[in-house]
Structures are given as structure tokens and as C-alpha cells.
């Protein structure tokens, strides 16, 4: 084999680079997502399983529909009518009012950085009050 040493060294360096994410993250697993579901509202606009897998497609449809064709209301699977609005519906006070306790949980865990929040303003979250301050 010509230049055998160089080739083997090259393969080793290549493998190290390729597997970088694996050994870089070793032993530093991110904490499991702790998603807080709304207390008041029992049902979402689609069944939970669907939302889990396809919420991004749903939001994509919502935004295209409102922005491009001015259709702003949505008949949910349970027949209820909702306004198609990320801020006013999804993140209303009764639903996912806290971005950090809902959206961010999974997105941070999976390393997904959606650019929704570059423009849309999530509801203000007061820092959680400690029990002693309640009195």
C-alpha cells in the first residue's frame, strides 16, 4: 500500500471528526423535557398525538391561511372554533401561557431552534413566586 501511514492517519482523523458529536456529548445528557400541560383547557385543537408529531405543519397551515388568504378561524377536531393565532390562541392565558414550560422544554432538549420568536412576542412570564412571598 502506497502511503499506508498517511491513509490510516487520515482515516483515524476523519473518524474522530465524524464522531465528534457523540464523544463530545458523552456523559452530559440534557435533562429530560418536563412539559407542563395546561390545567384549565383539557383539549387542544387536534388530538394530542397529532399535535405531538405535526404541530409544526399545523402552525405552518395556520400562518399561510391567516397571512396569505385571510382565513383566520379554524374548526378543531371537536367541532370548536378557534382563531388561528399563535399568540392569541396557542399561548393564551388558559393554554400554553408559559413558553419556557412548554415550547422550550422539547425544543431545547432536541436542539431545535424555531425562528418564531425572532418576531412573535411570547407572553410575559412573571418569575415564579416563591411560597414565602405569597403571604
Amino acid at each position, binding site marked *: 500500500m502506497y502511503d499506508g501511514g498517511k491513509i490510516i492517519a487520515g482515516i483515524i482523523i476523519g473518524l474522530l471528526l465524524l464522531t465528534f458529536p457523540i464523544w463530545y456529548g458523552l456523559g452530559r445528557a440534557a435533562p429530560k423535557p418536563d412539559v407542563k400541560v395546561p390545567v384549565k383547557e383539557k383539549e387542544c385543537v387536534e388530538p394530542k398525538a397529532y399535535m405531538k408529531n405535526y404541530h409544526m405543519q399545523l402552525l405552518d*397551515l395556520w400562518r399561510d391561511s391567516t397571512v*396569505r*388568504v385571510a*382565513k*383566520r378561524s379554524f374548526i378543531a377536531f371537536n367541532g370548536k372554533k378557534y382563531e388561528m393565532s399563535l*399568540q392569541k390562541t396557542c399561548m393564551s392565558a388558559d393554554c400554553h401561557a408559559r413558553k419556557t414550560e412548554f415550547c422550550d422544554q422539547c425544543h431545547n432538549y432536541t436542539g431545535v431552534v424555531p425562528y418564531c*420568536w*425572532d418576531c412573535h*412576542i411570547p407572553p*410575559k412570564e412573571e418569575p415564579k413566586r416563591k411560597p414565602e412571598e405569597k403571604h
Partner: protein
Amino acid sequence: MAVNRRKFLKIGGASILAFGAKPAADALGISPTEWLDEKLGGFTIPETLLHLFRKPAGSVAGEALTAKRWAMVVNVRALDEEIAEACKEACHRVHNVPEIDNPKHEIKWIWQEEYEHVFPGQQHEHVDEALKKLPFLVMCNHCFNPPCCRVCPTKATFKRKKDGIVLMDMHRCIGCRFCMAACPFGARSFNWIIPWPRAGAEEERRFKGKEPPTPDYPTRAKGVVEKCNFCAERLAKGQIPACVEVSQELCKKKGREPALVFGDLEDPDSEVRQLLRLHYTIRRKPELGSHPNVYYIV
């Protein structure tokens, strides 16, 4: 039998129609071209969405203001600096248009201009001094034949078929700025820098002395083009555009005719049409054939 042959045929025929291209598109509220765009695009609607799309996604009935073709009349004689400034402020506040000091990076949806700049070529040395000093309000003309929409490579800017408003889809804009070159009215602004700080710890510090954005309307990210949207989001809630509302209040207070009037150009009884009948009106650069929907009473 509840369903006789005739009825069966009727229903069948209706269903065929209903699932044909145009009626189906109408039922969904998207125009045939949009429907076709999406079909041809193939990628635009993921497979998983198709079942969702069959659900009626209707507008909030009875609430929204609708028209066949929205238009605005600017009565310049009823304007003054104060009203013009109030219009600009109201618009920029409800739409989170940032205040940027560097004029090169400026973003404006509606602003004051002098006569000679609004109607270049119309000025001459003997033009009425009063006219020269009047604060003309300029904004996107929502052209009937918009050059900006013609050039956009992604349909990020488009004319809404149902009411003629020229809109921006900030989610889709790639920031090529072709529309800015195409617009003959300089109505478009580009986000050269990050216009608002992102939500986070730094927020408080950076907003010191400046009003933070209102949560009712999204802000923008860097690298997209924006412009006046005839308050499409307010029309959906049954409100007239912010600038029109503010100017009419102020004009009422000052005992003048309304300076800005908004209405349906296709409706012969609308306020806009009445004004067009009563007054001689001009539009900006009519020779370019873009057919602006903003008229000026001078």
C-alpha cells in the same frame, strides 16, 4: 327510500363539482391560482396536511371589514403637521415599526413628504406656496397592478385576491430586495439590522427609554422587507386602518373634513367613491400603469 335516483344524481353532481379544482378552492377560500401554485409547488403543503385542509377554515363572519378593492383618499387640504405626525405614530406603534436613527437603515410605513417629492415632475416655480408646505402623507399605494409582486421570486409579496391589498409574508421573504428596486414609490423598507432585540435577559436594558414592542403584532427579524399593509390585521377585527382612525378623530376635534378616508372602490356608495365624484383627485405616477389605490385631493 329517502334518497331517490334524482336526489342521488344531484348530490353526486354537487360532490363532483365540490371536489373539482375551482369550487374546491373556492370552498377553502383560496383563489384558483393560489391553489394551483400550491398544487404545482408540490412542496408547499405536506401530505400530512391535506386532511387538515379539508376542514373549513373560514373567516370570522360578521366581524371582519370586507371590500372588493380597498382604497384610500388623502385630502391634503385637511392635513397638517400634527395630524400627519399622529398618523405616522399610530401606524408605527401598532405595527411595531422600530425607530432607527440612521436614515440609511430607516423603516417607515407611512410618512410625510413634500409635494415636489410626492409628485416629481409636477412642480414648477409658480406652484402655490401653501401647497409646497403641505404635509403630504405617503405610504404603499396597494397598486392594482403591483410591480413589486411581479418581481418577487417567492411570492412573499402578493396581492390578496379578495380585496386587492398588497401584503408581505415575512415568513417567506428571502431578502433579495428585488421588490424595493421595482417599487416606483419608495414605499418599501428593509431590515438592515436586527430591528428589535430578541426576548431575553438583555431586553430590559436595551429598551431603556424606548417603548417595548406591543405583543399584539409581531416584530420583524433582520433581512426581510416590510411596508404598509392597509392594516389587514385590523380589518380582520372590524377596525379601520390606524392612520385613518387617528386622523379622523383629530380632524373632528379641529372641525375639519376627514383627512384620510378608507373604503371600497368597487362600491358606488362608499365614502371613497363619493369623494372621488366630488373632487378632482390625482394619483402618484399614473403613467407607470401600476394603478395606485391611494388618491390625493390637492
